[in-house]
């Protein structure tokens, strides 16, 4: 067993940036005896500490396993490049924060798959841990490498590297999985026997038991290799949030992390059904936490953490029934404790502004909204059902209430989008500014962020291709030119090449795994960070792996086509998805595209 001693640790930490990422020992972190528990797991987050410690899923799973006295979960995050140099140079293994023990000494390593562009970090962490990347090459004594989170809804690009995926919400099933594993290990079963035995569990996908079949290079089916393995896998769903484990004493980071606040989840899922939004579909059905439970959790959270901010989270918080009553009850429960309450994911309507106004008593920072598209037609296509009147009257209310700063989020590359839809973004911002600037001598500040649409599995847009890279780049140029004429508006856009890769992994099949390994071997890391992202390296990996990324990114799937994630199910989705996808392209919504064809 490997542990890193204090002196060596100080020697390493004196040579890296932000050493506070690696110290562990935070308030509420576990300190359990490795040798007296029966199951030991590492929760591995393939991004920096500051990002991982902001993830609510990580806190929930940490609570669900560590609340069991017979189980242990420790944490590890991706090492920043300077720390990786230190660890490799000194030939040390990847270690956990809590006990500084080698990750490979644990029974299970569970990766949180939040974002496609962290996949090279997953491979890098396996390598730093001293494990073979490929599931087939790992031995009986090696830990099981498992994955979960949104990325597991299309696990195929990662399939050869993982022993098992948990599809869906794992907080109630993960301790049960660990329990089963302990029993199977005690029986002395081999790794593959254990995996086969686990594969019958709900939401469990063991990729080595399934073989993708190809015809003319295109996926045409999935063969189940063992008759005991299920034909298809249904996602895990927590039935009642009030009964689900919840972290009221989460680990409190010493250093500043991205979201550093107490979080209570109001409800899971979203009834809105925006067609591009994966979270809106994979977390269905909508399940609410009761008001009494929310207030109880909030009080406990503040007592156990000392945070000064309480975030009432969900995919669309203003949709919580009787939210005003809830805010009233929270105010009462937390009176005198100097707590700010915040509602992320506000919609652009007057009701949301009233809520924000109420919560911010006095403080007026900035409000963030996501109209996503600037024309009513395109918003209908993506089912973001707000009208231009909604936008203007909501902003009017906000400006009257004293807000001056607004952040607006848009997407380009959406299905049926034309150049007019893109130009409309600039136009909308221009009109917003004209309407609201100069009122009472005050100027409003507008910041506009434009992302590229990435089609995701298990959404009505899953069959749609991503818009071609050249076209995205041209549309970004169009926006830059447009905003150049609007000084004072802060315009930001996402790197189109990064979104291209995101689409590749979001809709890729198992063949994409070899490209991923190639890219990692060439040195790709932290692809979601613009300072590390190198599209040139990825292009080299395309050449060396022989994989044509365009075949995945630009492919229009037919309803009859076999989707790489077709054997994983999110409930009664199939008919709904087809119906909803068809509705997108009805005559009225298609107008824009026809216009564009006229132009060509």
């Amino acid at each position: 067993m490997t542990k890193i001693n204090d002196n060596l640790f100080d020697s390493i930490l004196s040579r890296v940036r932000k050493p506070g990422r690696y110290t562990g020992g935070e308030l509420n972190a576990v300190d359990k005896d490795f040798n007296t528990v029966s199951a030991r797991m590492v929760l591995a987050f393939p991004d920096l500490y500051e990002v991982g410690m902001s993830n609510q899923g990580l806190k929930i799973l940490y609570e669900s396993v560590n609340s069991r006295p017979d189980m242990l979960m420790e944490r590890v995050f991706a090492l920043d490049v300077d720390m990786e140099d230190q660890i490799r140079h000194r030939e040390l293994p990847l270690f956990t924060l809590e006990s500084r023990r080698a990750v490979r000494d644990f029974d299970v390593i569970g990766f949180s798959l939040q974002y496609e562009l962290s996949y090279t970090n997953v491979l890098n962490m396996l390598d730093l841990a001293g494990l073979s990347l490929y599931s087939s090459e790992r031995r009986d004594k090696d830990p099981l490498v498992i994955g979960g989170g949104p990325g597991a809804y299309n696990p195929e690009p990662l399939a050869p590297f993982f022993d098992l995926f948990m599809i869906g919400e794992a907080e109630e099933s993960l301790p049960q999985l660990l329990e089963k594993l302990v029993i199977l290990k005690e029986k002395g079963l081999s790794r593959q026997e254990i995996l086969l035995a686990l594969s019958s569990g709900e939401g469990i996908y063991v990729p080595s038991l399934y073989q993708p079949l190809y015809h003319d290079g295109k996926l045409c089916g999935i063969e189940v290799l063992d008759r005991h393995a299920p034909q298809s896998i249904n996602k895990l769903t927590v039935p009642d949030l009030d009964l689900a484990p919840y972290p009221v004493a989460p680990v409190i980071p010493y250093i500043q992390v991205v979201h550093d606040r107490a979080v209570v989840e109001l409800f899971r899922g979203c009834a809105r059904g925006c067609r591009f939004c994966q979270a809106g579909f994979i977390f269905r059905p909508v399940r609410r936490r009761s008001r009494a439970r929310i207030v109880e959790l909030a009080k406990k959270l503040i007592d156990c953490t000392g945070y000064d901010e309480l975030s009432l989270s969900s995919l669309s918080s203003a949709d919580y029934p009787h939210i005003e009553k809830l805010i009233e009850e929270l105010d009462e429960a937390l009176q005198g404790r100097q707590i700010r309450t915040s509602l992320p994911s506000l919609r652009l309507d007057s009701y949301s502004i009233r809520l924000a106004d109420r919560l911010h008593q006095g403080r007026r920072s900035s409000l963030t909204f996501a109209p996503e598209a600037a024309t009513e037609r395109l918003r209908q296509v993506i089912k973001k059902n707000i009208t231009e009147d909604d936008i203007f009257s909501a902003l009017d209310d906000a400006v009257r209430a004293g807000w001056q700063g607004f952040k607006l989020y848009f997407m380009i590359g959406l299905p049926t989008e034309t150049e007019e839809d893109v130009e409309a973004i600039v136009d909308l911002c221009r009109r917003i500014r004209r309407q609201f600037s100069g009122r009472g001598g005050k100027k409003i500040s507008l910041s506009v962020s434009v992302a590229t649409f990435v089609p995701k599995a298990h959404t009505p847009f899953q069959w749609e291709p991503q818009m071609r890279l050249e076209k995205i780049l041209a549309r970004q140029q169009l926006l830059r030119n447009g905003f150049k004429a609007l000084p004072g508006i802060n315009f930001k856009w996402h790197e189109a090449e990064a979104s291209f890769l995101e689409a590749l992994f979001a809709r890729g099949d198992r063949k994409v795994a070899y490209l991923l390994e190639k890219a990692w071997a060439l040195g790709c890391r932290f692809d979601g960070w613009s300072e590390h992202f190198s599209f040139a390296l990825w292009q080299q990996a395309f050449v060396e792996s022989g994989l044509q990324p365009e075949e995945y990114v630009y492919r229009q799937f037919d309803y009859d086509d076999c989707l790489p994630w077709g054997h994983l199910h999110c409930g009664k989705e199939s008919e709904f998805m087809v119906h909803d996808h068809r509705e997108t392209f009805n005559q009225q919504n298609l107008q824009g595209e026809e216009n564009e064809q006229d132009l060509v």
Partner: protein
Amino acid sequence: MNKIWFSFARHKRMRYFSHLDMLRLFIRALRRGRFPVVYSQGFNPHPRFSLALPLPLGITADEELGEITFSEKFDAGQFAGLLAEQMPVGLEITGAVCVDENRPPLPSLVEAASYRAGMINEGPENISSLYLEQAVNNLFSKGEIKILKRGKRNKEKEINIRPHIMALSAADKADHPTVAMLLRAGSGGGVSPLIVLEKVIAGMGITEPANIRWDLHRERLYTNADGKLETLSEGMCKIDG
């Protein structure tokens, strides 16, 4: 209202957190412990809490100081005991005292700090403690020590740090060769111990300075009372960790 000064030690992993990290840590601890802290007025109320003289990252300390204002009377000893319950391993509350509300803010009183730095040589090169002693004595005997400092608009400016070095000596302690320093600090100007140690290393003619690591430790903070240095922890009730 009731103003309290308290002292604390930072050891082990507590050296790796910044001044702002420490402020957050204390403020959260005070909220968990439901202390009756006074908040500033206005749109963004802040607790009336401050720490004297930020400690650079990577340094341990024996006696750091903090100041806090409560809305009601608080016994200093009781306060220290309750606060200690909220502290992580490596952070020890060592003392506390009630002070006159009209005393100037604690951070404005700090004018000097003493440090001890153990030299850890992680390279293959054999470095005698005599070299260190010579380099230290040489540096201290100079009338002027120039360094380049980045000022406003990233402009480099040459400044003389010698007046900020009040005492500097070397000793061969049990573990490692050690440098002791007394440096001016605070709003009246001063120098970081890291810069002084950089100058010491530069004077030793070591081929691979990156192999040297300092185990750097702040001992005391001082104020100037009628031309004499005095510690600010006078009169504190002492708490044993």
